[in-house]
């Protein structure tokens, strides 16, 4: 938890998430009692530096998307605060609903579903220009051309409807829309998992180019370790709503400290790899309605001890040998 | 499962209360002065005031409601002035006749509707499908009161196969065959529209289900087509058809208003029409309340049946 604060001191920090929690359900019921609650994200602290690509990996249901929605303001944290460029997000949103959208944008997982089927691409791309910038008509027209050029689409696509596009093209439009208002940070939520492998590489290369051209910062969410490894500077591995391991991509993937990261790495299939690590069938996520008291990974962990079952390891329980590499584990694979 | 049913029953209580409030408010909203309506225009102001006091109409609305509800709990729905008997007695007597008619129609529409729907789906675009589809469209386009008149004209007047009206023969009737004899035409008429609706929905539901991945799995297992359709697909289709049958119960009970008038069936529908015409509002109130309560309970039943079929809803 100290990690967040430590990072804030650096002047190049763009976004700081401290101790954020998001609970779904749990509202009061008509006849007393409460509806069951799920902690989608729990005491999560993280900071994003200007110009970097921060990867967030984890399996389905671990809270990646929830985190992404919190950052772009599509959802509000139950507790904790998110500070962008020195300003609290909640305050920012209160001051002007659109001020956050000018700085932070989002690219969706399902490119086609994120485009309104009844609007032309022009209408879709013009919306952020109209509402988030004060460009006049000519200025908007000029910007539209620039945007299409940036994402490698022909200008005649402007008058077409979303259903006429393939997944890869639709995702380019989604990226163009995110770029429209000139944001500093873009949250990419599984931007390539709905795409075919050959198109996936096109989009990854495009994203890479745009980042350099426009000096962007990315939060890149994915369940695919190899994709994250190839595009990210730093990585956060999430498990059951919390960060299990955080650090420079090179270190996290090169010398994983958390047993969960290690399991992920050894489960991932790769061309030429014949034997995968496999656990028992009984290895499953804990019940979200009835979370364990100690480490959430304990049931699947072969390094666990009594301490793991009783108390939650702190996010920086295990500081790694390299600076900024931490793991929430009592018995990490490598010690500092 | 028991817990689920208990929960649903509990949840029905507020709905029933809501019903009483709506019914009460509708009656309270009636323009004009009920006392004058009852006593006629020659009533003296004193008489009106006295009756208003007797009826509790000098109190505030919430007070009136509480008193009314208290009476309701004791089975007192007031007295019908046009019939000069307790509303509850009249309503219950009439309601049982409606129940026989509507119940029969509901059974008919479920059976024929489901069958027609399945055949139509399985023979999609075949002649059976086309004929059923056309019949269904005709069924839901025919005004039931007109159909009733036509049936009377043909089967009662011309062919003399069935009686034109009533529930029992006036002389020597009263047994079950007599009832069935009288019931046939009105029940058939009443079920036509609902059958159409159920058939249409069953067809769509079956077609939707037959495209699902688990139907492919059933075929990949080597199941005979008969089992694929009548076991795997039909069960899933039922999940969406059962609530529709629940809603049809409402349409059938409502439709009974026409059919009872046409066939002079001594049910609650014809009673309501008369009561409205004579502005016997307490009778209207009682009738509406009982029918609505029965409908709520029936929908509850449909809900429970649906949950029995679909474990995901539990």
């Amino acid at each position, binding site marked *: 938890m100290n990690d967040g604060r430590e990072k804030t001191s650096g002047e190049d920090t763009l976004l700081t998430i401290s101790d954020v929690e998001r609970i779904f359900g749990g509202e009061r019921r008509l006849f007393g009692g409460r509806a069951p609650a799920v902690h989608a994200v729990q005491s999560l602290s993280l900071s994003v530096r200007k110009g970097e690509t921060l990867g967030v990996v984890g399996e389905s249901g671990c809270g990646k998307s929830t985190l992404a929605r919190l950052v772009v303001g599509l959802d509000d944290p139950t507790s904790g605060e998110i500070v962008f460029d020195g300003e609290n997000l909640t305050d920012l949103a209160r001051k002007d609903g659109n001020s956050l959208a000018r700085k932070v944008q989002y690219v969706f997982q399902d490119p086609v579903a994120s485009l309104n089927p009844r609007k032309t691409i022009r209408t879709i791309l013009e919306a952020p220009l109209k509402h988030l910038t004060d460009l006049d008509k000519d200025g908007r027209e000029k910007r539209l051309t620039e945007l299409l050029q940036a994402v490698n689409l022909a200008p005649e696509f402007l008058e077409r409807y979303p259903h006429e596009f393939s997944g890869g093209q639709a995702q380019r439009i989604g990226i163009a829309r995110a770029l429209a208002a000139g944001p500093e940070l873009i949250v990419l939520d599984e931007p390539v998992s709905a795409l075919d492998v050959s198109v996936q590489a096109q989009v*990854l290369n495009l994203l890479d180019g745009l980042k350099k051209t426009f000096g962007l910062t990315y939060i890149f969410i994915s369940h695919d370790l190899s994709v994250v490894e190839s595009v990210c500077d730093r990585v956060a591995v999430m498990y059951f709503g919390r960060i299990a391991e955080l650090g420079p991509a090179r270190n996290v993937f090169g010398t994983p400290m958390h047993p969960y990261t290690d*399991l992920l790495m050894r489960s*991932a299939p790769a061309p030429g790899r014949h034997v995968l690590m*496999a656990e028992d069938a009984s290895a499953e996520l804990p019940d979200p309605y009835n979370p364990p008291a100690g480490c959430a990974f304990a049931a699947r962990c072969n390094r666990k001890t009594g301490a793991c079952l009783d108390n939650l390891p702190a996010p920086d329980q295990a500081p790694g040998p390299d600076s900024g590499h931490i793991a929430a584990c009592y018995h990490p694979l490598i010690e500092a | 499962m028991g817990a689920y049913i208990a929960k649903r029953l509990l949840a029905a209580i507020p709905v029933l209360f809501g019903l009483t409030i709506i019914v009460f408010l509708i009656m309270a909203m009636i323009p004009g002065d009920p006392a004058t309506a009852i006593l006629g225009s020659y009533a003296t102001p004193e008489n009106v005031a006295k009756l208003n006091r007797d009826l509790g109409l000098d109190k505030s609305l919430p007070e009136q409601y509480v008193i009314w509800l208290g009476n309701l709990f004791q089975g007192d729905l007031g007295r019908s002035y046009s019939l000069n008997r307790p509303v509850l007695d009249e309503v219950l007597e009439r309601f049982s006749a409606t129940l026989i008619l509507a119940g029969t129609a509901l059974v008919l529409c479920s059976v024929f509707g489901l069958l027609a729907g399945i055949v139509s789906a399985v023979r999609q675009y075949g002649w059976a499908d086309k004929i059923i589809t056309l019949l269904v469209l005709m069924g839901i386009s025919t005004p039931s009161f007109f159909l009733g*008149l036509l049936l009377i004209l043909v089967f009662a007047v011309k062919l003399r196969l069935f009686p034109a009206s009533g529930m029992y023969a006036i002389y020597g009737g009263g047994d079950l065959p007599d009832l069935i004899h009288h019931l046939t035409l009105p029940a058939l008429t009443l079920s036509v529209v609902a059958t159409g609706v159920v058939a249409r929905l069953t067809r769509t539901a079956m077609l939707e289900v037959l495209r699902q991945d688990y139907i492919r799995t059933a075929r990949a297992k080597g199941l005979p087509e008969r089992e694929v359709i009548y076991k795997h697909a039909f069960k*899933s289709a039922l999940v969406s058809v059962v609530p529709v049958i629940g809603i049809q119960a409402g349409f059938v009970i409502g439709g009974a208003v026409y059919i009872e008038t046409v066939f002079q069936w001594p049910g609650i529908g014809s009673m309501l029409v008369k009561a409205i015409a004579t502005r016997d509002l307490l009778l209207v109130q009682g009738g509406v309340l009982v029918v609505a309560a029965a409908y709520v309970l029936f929908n509850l039943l449909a809900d429970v049946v649906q949950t029995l079929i679909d474990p995901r809803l539990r």
Partner: protein
Amino acid sequence: MTNTAISGKGRQAGKSARPGTFSLLLNNTLATAGLIILIAVCLLALAAPVLPLLNPDVTAPANRLLPVFSTGHLLGTDHLGRDLLSRLIWGTRVSLAVGVSATIIAAVFGSMLGLVAGYAGGRTDTVIMRGIDMVMAFPYILLALAIVAVLGPGLLNALYAIALVNIPFFARNIRGITLGLSRREFVDAARLSGKSPAQILFVEILPNVLPVIVITMSTTVGWMILETAGLSFLGLGAQPPQADLGSMLGEGRKILFTAPHVSIVPGVMIFVLVMAINLLGDGVRDILDPRLRAGSLTRPVARTVVLRNPADVPAPSGDENILDVRRLRTEFQIGGTVYHAVGGVDLALRQGECLGIVGESGSGKSLTAMSIMGLVPTPPGRIAGGAAYLEGEDLFAASDRRIRDLRGGSVAYVFQDPLSTLHPLFTVGNQLEEAIRTHQPLSRARTREKAIELLSLVRIPNPKERLTTYPHELSGGMRQRVCIAMALANDARVLIADEPTTALDVTVQSQILTLMNGLRRERNAAILFITHDFGVVSAICDRIAVMYAGRIVETGKTDDILASPQHPYTAKLIECVPVLGEPERRLDAIDGRPPVVNNLPEGCAFADRCPQAQSLCRTGEIELVAAGADRGVRCLFPMNREPSA
């Protein structure tokens, strides 16, 4: 309903020249008939004041109850001697006006409530929907009666009553749609584009809801006309001397036995009017409802239709193969367009071997697998050529009965998404036992035992307890284990697994892959394993066949292909995927996209994207050429070819 195919066909006319909604409607015979009748009736009703009609309200006791076709009274007269034709047309005018106004009132108020409730959610939604539920707790007509009781009989009051009781119907429908839409990503995207809630509701959501409102209106107008007529029939609607069709019928009823034509004339008119509206409404629904429109509500038959030239059935390639697919061609016919989804695939699977089919989405992997046992949905699919031999037996020539015995018996399938492939309403045990019972005549107890054995075989803990669980109560990995258990129920010799791990998380994927690998070695079963992931292939497959645009472009031993791909597509496909542990690798994207299979180019289908392409590549048929043992390449200028190979 009958006309789904027709409208479906219309849509396929092509994206560029999409036919308008109206011309689609005209394609539908019944709907067109409805439209014509409706227009005729409307014109008649509108023209009533200028038509040379007798005054509908003038009584002429001398002319009472004239029959139909009397001189001067085409449809006769009623009990007061009024002209029925004139009354009919004026009455239709009233009925139409009332029905349409009631629909519009109900649609406007109901849709507003539904839109607001669905979009606002939370408390607003709860309050609105509880109110709606309360109103819906009354049987429909009863509520209308109660309202008329309050307002007093009269046509206008009947109109209000009918409109009012229909508001909940619209509200519910529209709320459901709105709720679904407002969870869609494009709504979030609009919010992030800076749009206000009102803008989102009316500019983003409403256009998507509008078709549903129109559908609901077109299916309720007829109903509303019936209902107002009903109230009038009971004497609670139109009051004399005003008449609508319902009140005419009500008056005629009293003299039904003596002069039936007085009631039959308005009754038939109501029927014709409502029928026309319903026919049209059905047509409108077919066109506007995207599900019906795509023709997707067609029922697939039990087995894929085989339409191959009997004179051109390829012979099996060898005896040692347990499964032998030869020149398989599977097509889709949608409207006038034929998609050659599988264009001549050869596959051979030996005992105990695992063959991987790799390719991008749309390359025809699944169709190849489904074709083998006739599981491609017909319509629109069909097997257009080739053969599949299971131990020498031609599967496409086998009887339906025989195929049923083989399905789940000798050849078993495991599909991609274990949640949708298991029946949600039957327990795991029930589905497993069914798989066993279909092929083995065992006693109940023995079947159950066998089911438990199968569950332990796929390493499910507490197999006995799991028998009574439903699929939704299991995790994704467990469900897939159940599917595998089901596939193993009858000692299948060939297992066809269609992306069995794609829907799973990596850790679960490795569990399932390890399980399948172990099982195939234990049981010496052959597996046809479909995936798009070369990593997964490495973990389980002995050999690979790479598919592109419906054909196999390269085949060979897994390690050979990964080490030295010869087809440019294979090479590119391997290079464009990041590999764990090699973050510095530059991703080499493949430009462009795969060709659409209804219009394949001549020559090599990959030519447009191929860096090696030459003019020769774009002409003629390119064969799969053998290049060493187990190796074949469909390319004129293959790569990585060592001279000695």
